[in-house]
Structure formats: structure tokens, C-alpha cells
């Protein structure tokens, strides 16, 4: 294959990564933005989504699309429920103290990971895609499913954006993010907003995982890379900024796809991590964010 098509393939792969990453990182960003909680267990919610997707789709017989759709609906709901319980039992009791919640979410990470290992096992298991249509390009055929993942992610991002900017729920969330005490004084049910945001954040990660699981397999350690990449995206995009998060996800996803096609993936990760750490040190508002007042 020539360089051009090769690059196109890399870019397409990168776009799929970006799409999934944007959803995952958006969840992390929402939770941090509204609650000021760094959720280290975010990657485990992603993993949980994938593992549940496998369980649901194997439990349902018939056409793979039926199982997949069931998984796409049920898995995120279950993950949201887990997140809700964790929020009630742990985060709320810590009064959302930033350091305490980091330590607690590290604890959740280990618990979820270990439970997945115990009940799901160490194997990587595939989920069948809902359809197997291949789009024929002049140079190579490309999975139609992968492109539909990109489309699905784009639709979800637009919906989230609309909810955040155009609805009363979005207004309440932004008010809570801006000033928790004042919002409370104006009758915003802050605790319920927090619980909801934490659950929605986890559900976004779970949806991303269900979308990706027919492409890459479900595995109990699969949450680690999305967590790191989401951190990178959220930091580069500016903590708590939706537009920055999406732009950064596309940037990171594309460059990750392209760089790891031409360089060692370890080297790519080293450079990306180092760059992000430096961004955080020298430009903590992110590359696209503006300095807070």
C-alpha cells in the first residue's frame, strides 16, 4: 500500500479512537467540571460497560444486532446504577473533598477491577458487531460498523451539548458548577445534581465501551488506557470545557492512530504523557482554555 492510503487508514482508525475517547473524556470532564472530583475509577466504569455488554449480548440469542442493542441500553444503565451507589455511599460522605475523593476512587478502581477478574475472568472476549457491512474504498475495504461508531458518538456529543446549553437541566448544572453555595441558596438540589452528574459521567464511559467492544475485545484491564487518555484529553482541552474536550479528543485520537502506525506505541505514549504533564505544569488552564478570572 502507498503512503497516501496508508495515512488515510491511519486517520480513519484515529477517528474511531477519537470518537470513543471524546465520549469517555466528556464523562470525566463533566464530573470534574461540576463536582470538582477527579474520578480515577472512570476507566473501570468503561471496562464495566464492555464486560456487561459481553454478558448481555451472549445471554440474548438471535441476531447479533438484538443482543448489541440490548447491551447498548442496559449496560450503561447498570453502570450508572453502580456509579450512583458509589456516589451515595462514598463520595457524598466525603463531602466531595478533592483529595479524599481521589483516594476513594482509587479504592473503587481496585475493587471493580478485582471483581471483574473474579467473576468475568482474565480472558479477552469479543462481542459480535450488530452488522458486518464493509465500505469499499478504491484502496481498501473499511468496516461500516467503525464509521457508525463515529456517527453515534457525534450524535451523542451533540445531544449532550444541547442538554448542557439549551435545557433547564443544563442551566442547573452550570449554576452548580459556577458556585455550589449560591446554587443551593437558590433552591438547586445540589446533592441530586451531583449524584446525577456522577452517574451520567459513568454512563458516557459505558456507552463508549459498548460501542468499541465489537472492535476491540472486553478485558478486565481494558480501563487503564482510556483512563490515561481521558486525563490527557481533559487536561489538554482545559478542565471542564466541553468544546476543548472534543477538540482535544480528536487531536489525541488522530495523532495516537497516526503516530502508533509509524512509531513504537510505547514511545508514542511516553511523548504524549510527557507533553501533557508539561501542559499541566506550564499551562494549567489547558491549551484551549482561558485563564480563570
Amino acid at each position, binding site marked *: 500500500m502507498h503512503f497516501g492510503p496508508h495515512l488515510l487508514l491511519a486517520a480513519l482508525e484515529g477517528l474511531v479512537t477519537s470518537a470513543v475517547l471524546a465520549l469517555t473524556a466528556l464523562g470525566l470532564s463533566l464530573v470534574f467540571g461540576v463536582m470538582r472530583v477527579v474520578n480515577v475509577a472512570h476507566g473501570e466504569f468503561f471496562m464495566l460497560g464492555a464486560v456487561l455488554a459481553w454478558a448481555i449480548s451472549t445471554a440474548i440469542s438471535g441476531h447479533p444486532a438484538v443482543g448489541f442493542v440490548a447491551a447498548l441500553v442496559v449496560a450503561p444503565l447498570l453502570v450508572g446504577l453502580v456509579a450512583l451507589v458509589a456516589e451515595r455511599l462514598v463520595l457524598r460522605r*466525603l463531602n466531595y473533598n478533592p*483529595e*479524599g475523593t481521589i*483516594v476513594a476512587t482509587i*479504592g473503587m478502581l481496585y475493587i471493580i*477491577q478485582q*471483581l471483574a477478574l473474579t467473576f468475568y475472568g482474565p480472558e479477552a472476549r469479543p462481542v459480535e458487531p450488530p452488522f458486518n457491512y464493509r465500505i469499499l474504498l478504491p484502496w481498501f475495504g473499511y468496516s461500516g460498523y467503525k464509521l457508525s461508531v463515529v456517527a453515534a458518538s457525534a450524535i451523542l456529543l451533540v445531544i449532550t451539548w444541547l442538554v448542557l446549553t439549551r435545557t433547564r437541566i443544563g442551566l442547573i448544572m452550570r449554576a452548580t458548577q459556577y458556585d455550589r453555595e449560591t446554587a443551593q441558596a437558590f433552591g438547586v438540589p445540589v446533592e441530586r445534581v451531583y449524584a446525577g452528574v456522577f452517574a451520567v459521567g459513568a454512563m458516557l464511559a459505558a456507552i463508549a465501551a459498548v460501542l468499541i467492544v465489537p472492535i476491540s475485545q472486553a478485558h478486565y484491564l481494558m480501563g487503564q488506557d482510556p483512563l490515561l487518555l481521558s486525563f490527557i484529553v481533559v487536561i489538554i482541552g482545559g478542565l471542564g470545557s466541553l468544546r476543548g474536550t472534543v477538540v482535544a479528543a480528536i487531536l489525541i485520537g488522530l495523532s495516537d492512530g497516526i503516530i502508533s502506525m509509524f512509531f513504537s506505541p510505547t514511545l508514542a505514549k511516553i511523548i504524549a504523557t510527557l507533553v501533557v*504533564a508539561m501542559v499541566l505544569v506550564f499551562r494549567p488552564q489547558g491549551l484551549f482554555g482561558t485563564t480563570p478570572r
Partner: protein
Amino acid sequence: MRDASPAKAYALHVGVIALLFALNFVLPDYHQGLFARIMALAVFAMGYNLLFGYVGLLSLGHAMFFSAGLYGAGLTVHHLGWGVPEAFIAGVTCGALLALVIGLLALRTSGVAFMIVTMMFAQVFYLLILYFAAWTGGDQGLVVQQASRTLNLGGASLDLTDPTVRYMSALALFAVVLLITLTVVRSRFGRVLVAIRENEERTKMLGYDTVANKLAAVVASGAICAASGAAYALLFGYVGSSFAGVQYSILPLLWVLLGGAATTLGPLVGTLFMYYVTDITSGFTSAYLLIVGVALILLVLFFPKGILGSIRERWLGWLP
């Protein structure tokens, strides 16, 4: 309160060291080995505690300092054939230098950003170990040859693989670091560190260069953690990338939280407790991580001062 009971505090610490010395002759073989490991790792926890407990800086990347010591000592022995003392010094130096660089960068941030930055630098360090697998052995790691783990002291040669020598070496390091920590936290420097933890802005307005003080604490903490890593490589003969992973940044945090942050003996208590809990439960379950996770959450929720912190609060106010 300071100056209230220095004699009592020193007596307690010397007593603990003496007890550990005596245990060598009583403990069965298996527990003797476990204790040697616990003492070496308690040094890691003490280094972590200096920064987390006393200065209030929560790092999520201390595995890099531990493994800087581990690899600094292990690789110089393995590739350059250095002797034990030189290798140990090389390890500690690596850790201190790394801490200096990381401190200069990471201390520009604070709070949550500090945690994430330290975690990311540690991740880079971990990936570098994998990337240079030709020298480091990658995730397989390296075994430091038994023959090169001999300490020559003026004619007498000590075999660090011998259980008693290993126990005593770990104890010696532990004792030195414990007494250094005790002296530091009772010194003027220690008082400044605590003041920074309590209110950095106020400390500045008392004429202190808080950034320089924090940097000194990061370097001291990094050097102590590296000493633990170097000792681990030389005493137990294995150097591997798993020691640089995220988990080894979380463990010292867990040990310190459990034993009691900002207590001098807390790190030992926490490490000891956690090791034995794992050891005992390993008979019933392999879910080691589950225990770590549950312990972290329970500690943060119900027991934020840890074992010795709670004892100090309720009964022994003089406990350093």
C-alpha cells in the same frame, strides 16, 4: 507539643528498634524474611510520609523514586559490576536527582494538579523502563546475581542473601531513616514544613521561601524512597518494572494512611499491618486488590487519621 517530651519520644523509637532487633532471633524463618521486606518497604513509606504527612503534598507518583533507587542500584551492579556500597549510593543519588527535577516542575502546581502531574511523570518513568528493555529487562525484570550481593567491610565479607544479614541490613537502614525522620520533624525545618501544610500563604508572610522548603522536602522524600528501592534491589536481588507501576505509588499512600499520616512510626505500623492482612487473607482469597481497595475507602471514610494518628489524638498527645 514540641519540647514537651523529647526523651520519651527518643526512648520509644530506640525501643522499637531494639524490639525489631530482638525479633530476628525469635521469628520463624518465613516471618523473618517477611519482616526484612516490611522494614525495607517501611522506609519507602517513611519517605512518602515526609511529603504527604508533614508537608501535605499528596503525590501519586512515588513509585518513580522507589524504582529510581531500585534500578540505580540494580543496574550498576548488573551492568557495571559495582560493589554494594557504590550501587546503594548510586541508587539514592538517582532518586534525589530525579526528585529535584520532578520537584522543580511539579511544585509549580498544587492540589489536584500536583497529584495528576506526579502520576504522569511516574507513568513516563515506567514506560521508559519498558522502552529501554534491552538494559532494564523490561517487564521481565532482572535478577541481581547472588555473587555480586556481597558487602565487603574491611576484610569481613557479608553475604546479603543470608537471612540474618539481610534482616540486620534492612533493620539498619530502617533505624537510620527512622531516627533521621524523628530528628527532622522535630527540627526547625520540620516546623516550617508543618506550617506550609497548615497554611502556605501565612508561612510565606512569615518570611519563608515556601517553594524552596517544599523542594527540599521533595528531594529528601525522593532520596529516602530511593534508599528503600536500592536496598530492596540489593537485599532481594530482583529489579522489575512492576515496582514502577501505579500500584507502587498507591501502596505507600495506603500504608501511611493506615498507620497514621504525620506520625513517625505510622509508616512501619501501616506497612506491617497491610502485609500481614494480605498474608493471612491470601489463604482464603487471591483478591489482594479488593482488600487494598476496600481498605483505602474505609480509611478515607471512617479512619482518616490512621492507627497511630487516632492513638495520638485520644491518648498519647506527645507521640511524634
